[in-house]
């Protein structure tokens, strides 16, 4: 079976878990720092999604995952939570410089209407943060939005292959 792997990274495991659940429907494996879900296209092709909690202080599974050959990395922070963004920002910078694989930074909005984010900011192609990183808004608990994020990542890969 052909498998692509994507890491979903956040300050807590809640966001990756929500994201993976939105894509895969369920979490296959979970421990305190990681979770795992599988998205099968058919019996020959699928995606493995690794949810990881940022734990830069210790030699954690986060770095094991990060250093593997991933298709790309999705960083999630809650739009209203400055702590999450502060913890993610240096990692995004680091990844953008050190890794060539695509990075999508998602500002998760629990409710699109509070605070009101105009629809025009929900751009399907995201905004370029760096050569290999894009920013987008999304409501990760909504499968349509979560899929949109993953499609953005795949589009970035396809752009490279074109």
């Amino acid at each position: 079976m052909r498998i692509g792997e994507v890491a979903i990274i956040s300050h807590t495991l809640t966001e990756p878990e929500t994201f993976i659940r939105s894509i895969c429907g369920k979490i296959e494996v979970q421990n305190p720092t990681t979770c795992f879900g599988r998205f099968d296209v058919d019996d020959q092709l699928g995606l493995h999604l690794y949810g990881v909690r940022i734990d830069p202080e210790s030699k954690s599974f986060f770095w094991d995952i990060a250093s593997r050959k991933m298709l790309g990395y999705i960083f999630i922070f809650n739009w209203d939570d400055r702590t999450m963004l502060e913890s993610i920002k240096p990692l995004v910078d680091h990844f953008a410089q050190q890794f060539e694989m695509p990075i999508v930074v998602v500002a998760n909005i629990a409710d699109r209407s509070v605070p009101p984010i105009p629809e025009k900011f929900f751009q399907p192609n995201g905004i370029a943060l760096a050569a290999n990183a894009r920013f987008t808004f999304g409501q990760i608990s909504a499968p349509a939005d979560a899929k949109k994020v993953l499609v953005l990542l795949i589009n970035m890969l396809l752009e490279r292959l074109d």
Partner: protein
Amino acid sequence: MKKVVLIDNDTSYVLPLKSEFEKADYEVIYFDDSQKAREALQHLVPDIILCEVELPQINGHALFKEVRSLAATKSVPFIFLSGQKRVDDRIKSMELGVDDYIVKPCSIEEIMARVRALLREISETNEHQSQPEKGFSGNLTEMNLVDLIQTLELGKKSAVLKLKHNTSTGLVFLKHGEVIDATLDNLPPDQALLRMFTWTVGTFVVEMSAIERERTIKQSNKELITVGLRRINEWEQIKENLPSLNTVVVKTELNNYQGLSEDEKRLLATVDQKSMIYEMIQKSHTDDIKALELIKSLLKKGYLKETDENYLSYTDNYLAQLKEHASKSRSSSDRVAAIMANFFDRSDQQQPGGNEQPRVERRQLPDRRRYLRRRFDRIRETGNIHLTKAELLMIRERLM
């Protein structure tokens, strides 16, 4: 810019459509939830509404009836989108009075063409009808809000006033000649009314109709008119010697803010490099007249200066708008906005797909990056990004 409301929970179908509308210079307000759409349409007056028939919670037919029952939106063109190909379903929808019915899947080009045709038809009809069926229309320069209220009060009329000024549209509701409610952006009714009093440029439409809504404005017309006249007077006085409110102004290099008041500093902080004057007024945390005074003062002191920039190209700049949104979002902390601004600053300096620093020849890349580049090339050459292009396309298709 025409405002389109799109209501459909099938994002895979609607998002490309939304994107095409945006490319064609429409402002698109998208809802994947009919309940939220219903709430928003209480205050929103779009130019056209496209709505899926089969929606959870409130279906398209119910939403259409509701839109038609509201004085402000009863004449907004409405198109149903539906996967239902049955003729009887289509007939039922058309009998409700919907303007068009599009069966999905349908090409985006066809939908755009139908929308354009419908808007053109309506525009031509409006041109031929110098006045609405029950009401009248005109120019705010000739008749401002105070004049309109006085006129309607005399006849004790119930009506909705639609006022357009720049890109803003406000509504004022009168019941038996008394002002009972007003809406404009997200402002409270009394503030919405105060802002609209100062609109002396723009257009208005008065639609006579029965008004059934809660009274939110408690002052009598007399009190409102007194306030309104005073504000118009003050506004016009301050506006003298000021450029047009559509003028784009930029921050100058003056960075010593010691001579500025706290209000001036705060207003200046809302300008992220550049802004239109009227946007600054909208973003300010003070009263409109006070904001205009502050802008005048900042221009005079040299902290702001006019530019020749076309404001349309300016407003089309996505990043600039997002920065503004981040900086004025009351719910997000300032810190988050500041950090986001850093992200965007970086993207401002490069085109999407470009590099942060000038591109260097591959042999000059630092070791780590050269290694990564080699690895990426290898992946690319062997088609082993772990997945091939065809496989990626298959996954994407499955996700969409």
